């Protein structure tokens, strides 16, 4: 068999079942739960995400904290996901679900743009998201704010894990949304300019980050205008800064740790091979 033939044989082997979910462990896991074992804690974005439209464009933003229970699992987690050049999605809920759903959306939308030769619309992104989420009846814990500018103008949609979607002028989601939405409700005005909208989103995020345990660390903003998109972040607000370090550094002298056994693994040097 030649090299290409064997490579094609490898290609034909099933790596995964076309990306579908495997339910192999469900029966075992349910049995383990009945025996009294608690299921593991999943990373949740436990988030504050905010979006507001202004005259001609859209500002979206998110904090950057991911939590697992009360542990901060990730301090600089990216919750503003790019779907296309001018469509973005902010996510709240189960972190793994959000990563995978937005990854799926962005590749589907890109394929669609290439096939049609036109820019994808926000409503397409929203519909793809809601149909996927509705299929899974809310078990995929992704709560999204999908927004962007397309040839029909700026749009913002809220999409819940059940597949409910709403068109909105401004929106907040996640555990910090109660604090954020009150700021938005008070200060949002129709026909704001970009600077006003950006300041409003930032203020709403600050409210969420100080009022909610599961939100904080830093914030990311994306400003979507008809002609271009600007990403800003991570911005660390003053109240999220770690106090200035005192003149003290925990530095260990080499050799402070007692080593019982030592082994060195050398790399094999492969010569003249067509790697990379």
């Amino acid at each position, binding site marked *: 068999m030649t090299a290409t033939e064997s490579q094609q044989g490898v290609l034909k082997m099933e790596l995964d079942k076309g990306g579908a979910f495997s339910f192999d462990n469900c029966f075992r896991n349910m049995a383990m739960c009945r025996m009294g074992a608690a*299921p593991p804690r999943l990373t949740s974005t436990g988030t504050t995400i905010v979006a507001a439209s202004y005259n001609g464009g859209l500002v979206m933003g998110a904090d950057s904290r991911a939590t697992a229970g009360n542990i901060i699992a990730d301090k600089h987690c990216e919750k503003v996901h790019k779907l296309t050049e001018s469509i973005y999605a902010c996510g709240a809920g189960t972190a793994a679900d959000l990563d995978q759903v937005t990854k799926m959306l962005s590749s589907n939308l890109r394929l669609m743009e290439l096939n049609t030769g036109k820019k994808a619309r926000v409503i397409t992104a929203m519909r793809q998201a809601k149909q996927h989420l509705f299929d899974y009846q809310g078990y995929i814990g992704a709560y999204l704010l999908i927004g962007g500018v397309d040839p029909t103008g700026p749009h913002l949609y809220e999409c819940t894990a059940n597949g409910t979607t709403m068109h909105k002028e401004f929106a907040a989601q996640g555990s910090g949304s109660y604090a954020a939405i009150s700021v938005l409700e008070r200060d949002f005005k129709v026909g704001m300019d970009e600077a006003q909208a950006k300041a409003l989103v930032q203020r709403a995020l600050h409210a969420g980050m100080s009022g909610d345990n599961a939100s904080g660390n830093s914030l990311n903003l994306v400003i979507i205008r008809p002609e271009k998109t600007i990403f800003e972040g991570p911005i660390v607000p003053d109240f999220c800064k770690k106090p200035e370090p005192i003149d003290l550094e925990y530095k260990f*002298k080499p050799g402070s740790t007692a080593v019982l056994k030592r082994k060195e693994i050398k790399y094999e040097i492969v010569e003249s091979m067509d790697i990379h």
Partner: protein
Amino acid sequence: MSIMSYNGGTVLAMAGNECVCIATDLRFGEQMTTVAVDQKKVHKISDKVYVGLAGFASDAKTVLEKINFRKGLYELRENRKLKPEVLATMISNLCYQHRFGSFFTEPLVAGLDPITSKPYICAMDTIGCIAAPRDFVAVGTGQEYLLGVCETFWRENMNADDLFEATAQSILSALERDAASGWGAVVYTITKDNVNVRTIKARMD
């Protein structure tokens, strides 16, 4: 009691300047009983890429087999060396495929880029949500203790020796307070020239 602490065990990875450290404890238990004292939770995937698997030991073993299978296929059909980022995405997709019936193991990837020697570390939850900070990651029963102590011990741009000391001291501190981990620790220091495997002296209870 959570399945995640049934067998116990902790893995920690720290990144430095063109080097990474990955450390594991050696205890394998069944709830409060220690069954084995030589169970490494860190596995070599390729020369400069290592993976740590904490949590339920039988799932960790299954996942490791699946990782090695996929890594083998990748190298055969792409005909190039595996980057740590690629491995992490691969493991993440593998875990997410089992979203609704997950493996009870938290994977951790540490390694250097085979060409540029850029350090990469990341941790995942049981369904493959990647957290890839630039400083340190920890998984397992000692995670909470480790994250706190690493926050003070980690410094910017450490060299391989400093990084080893910081990693070793961090895991030793965690072992002081985590009953489900212990019985010694092994620290792997991955640099662009070699990998140093050091078994460090720890309390044996």
